[in-house]
């Protein structure tokens, strides 16, 4: 991997400029611009169908916007490719858990290391020497993540058998295994009980602290959003209606209208 220049904390890591995304006649995102700074937790909120998940899909290259530009780590492009995004350090989790159901927790997280594994096909044939050394080295890293997320006991359990809360945790682990610069979390707390939510919040904050990961977060639990995030961007019907610190956003009349409705 080519050496990447370091981006200082607080500098712009990702800049989204005037992005528009249409599916036929449906305007998913219209002319949205915002930036994500290195080291912050950036929340993207909005009512259902506001285009939040589409926005994440644009950022990591799964959707290609019709207009607009995305600048990531100083490189501007009109569209990302998923594997390029992944190799440049953008990882994500999914709204509805998208784990590899037939594989164990360990293997799932090991998949996150795929891009970091370089040993050739030839050595893979024998699973000895360099390939095995590499495998062990990455296993060590994965074990650290397993430790970090407190999922030691389910290391060898196929993830299809795990309860929902743990699946979400494994998914976070899989994303962390990529050592991401920018971590996109799509509703990490959906469908969790209070205790699980608190655990998840702790993991998100610890991730930021320990790995220095920048986090973009979609979440519907406003308490969580306001507590965790440094800055919030609000979308409604694909249009950005507010952007700022949690307090600013909370006080914004447009946001209140979007969530509570307007009396006509």
């Amino acid at each position: 991997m080519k050496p990447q220049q370091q981006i200082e904390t607080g500098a712009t890591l990702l800049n989204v400029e005037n992005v528009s995304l249409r599916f036929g006649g449906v305007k998913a995102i219209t002319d949205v611009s915002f930036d994500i700074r290195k080291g912050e937790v950036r929340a993207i909120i909005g009512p259902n169908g506001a285009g939040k998940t589409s926005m994440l899909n644009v950022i990591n290259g799964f959707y290609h916007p019709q207009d607009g530009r995305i600048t990531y780590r100083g490189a501007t492009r009109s569209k990302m490719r998923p594997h390029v995004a992944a190799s440049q350090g953008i990882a994500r989790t999914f709204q509805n858990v998208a784990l590899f159901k037939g594989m164990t927790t360990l293997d799932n997280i090991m998949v996150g290391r795929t891009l970091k594994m370089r040993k050739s096909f030839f050595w893979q044939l024998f699973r000895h020497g360099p390939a095995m050394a590499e495998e062990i080295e990455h296993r060590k890293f994965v074990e650290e993540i397993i430790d970090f997320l407190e999922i030691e006991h389910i290391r060898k359990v196929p993830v299809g058998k795990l309860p929902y809360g743990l699946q979400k945790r494994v998914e976070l682990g899989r994303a962390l295994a990529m050592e991401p610069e920018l971590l996109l979390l799509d509703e990490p707390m959906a469908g969790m009980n209070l205790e699980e939510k608190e655990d998840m919040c702790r993991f998100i904050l610890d991730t930021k602290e320990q790995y220095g990961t920048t986090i973009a977060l979609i979440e519907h639990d406003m308490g969580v959003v306001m507590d965790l995030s440094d800055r919030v961007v609000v979308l409604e019907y694909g249009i950005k209606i507010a952007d700022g610190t949690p307090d600013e956003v909370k006080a914004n009349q447009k946001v209140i209208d979007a969530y509570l409705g307007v009396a006509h």
Partner: protein
Amino acid sequence: MFYRESGQFKKTYAADMAVFPILQDRIGIAIILFVAAVIIPLFGSTFFISSVMIPFLVFSLAAMGLNIVTGYTGLISLGTGAFMGVGAFACYKLTTIFPNVNIIIWILASGFFSAAIGALFGLPSLRIKGFYLAVATLAAQFFLEWCFVRIPWLYNYSASGAIQVPQRTLFDLPITGANATPVTRYLVLLGIVVFLTWIASNILHGRIGRTFMAVRDMDIAAELMGIRLLPAKLMAFALSSFYCGVAGAVMMFLWYGGGEAADAFNIRQSFNILFMVIIGGLGSLIGCYFGAALLSAVPLILKFGFPAMGIAIGSQTAEHINHLFVGSLIIFFLIVEPHGLARLWQIMKQKLRTWPFPY
């Protein structure tokens, strides 16, 4: 009672990541290999070796090939028979053009031809999935089958259109052709199958195997983790076809000893191997052996077992019962245990670990 892992502490990641982490498993594998390599050649009858063991090993290899693409990567292929045929013809052409090179090298090399063809027909897999991909691979089956009959160059313009396996030797011992004894053919085949199983297990336990399974389980997530789908799928097709090709080559050279390839590598063969994989267990290497054993043993039992017990049964009837049996077996497995014999084996091992306690 004897199958316990208590007291076996793993002190290194290497020990934990071993294919057989439990001592009893390693002993079991050693015993199986010993029986296969020493006991059977010494004490097995000619009939047992040439009609039971050799077909079983050939089918295991073919099932392994199909399992890589269907069980591990989740892409249905109905072209197995044709890919086996490519291997058989490649081996035949290679050994007639370069007769002095050892046949074992050509058997393994023929897999590469099959791999190339397989990757070519795997190209549509990026765009289409499921049934549609099955139909696309079906096209490969029919097209290649047509080639086997219509291109006389492939069978050296012989009048019958059949492959005539020439005699080839290893250390002056004939291993193919009419003079090769079943025991030599069996041992050569066993060597190839064991070696390739080991390679397959290495690949599937490592990075590449995880890539395949990731593509199978959730291709969108795999893509966003940086796995490029097309190379991964083509690699699965190539690897699978390699195994199928070698299986086809050994089928022609070490089992049939020649014959009309178009018959041996037709669509029924493809389905037969697909059934082995389904019954044995999708996504399991040991399942390939289970499936091959069951589906190659059942016809033999019906054909020779019943007459031996004094029950007169015509060969036509045996054939029909065989069809009935295999059909009902597939339905049974799809309903009761979609993961096949391999899963039953796992459950049994789990029970053995805790026996005599229920859990």
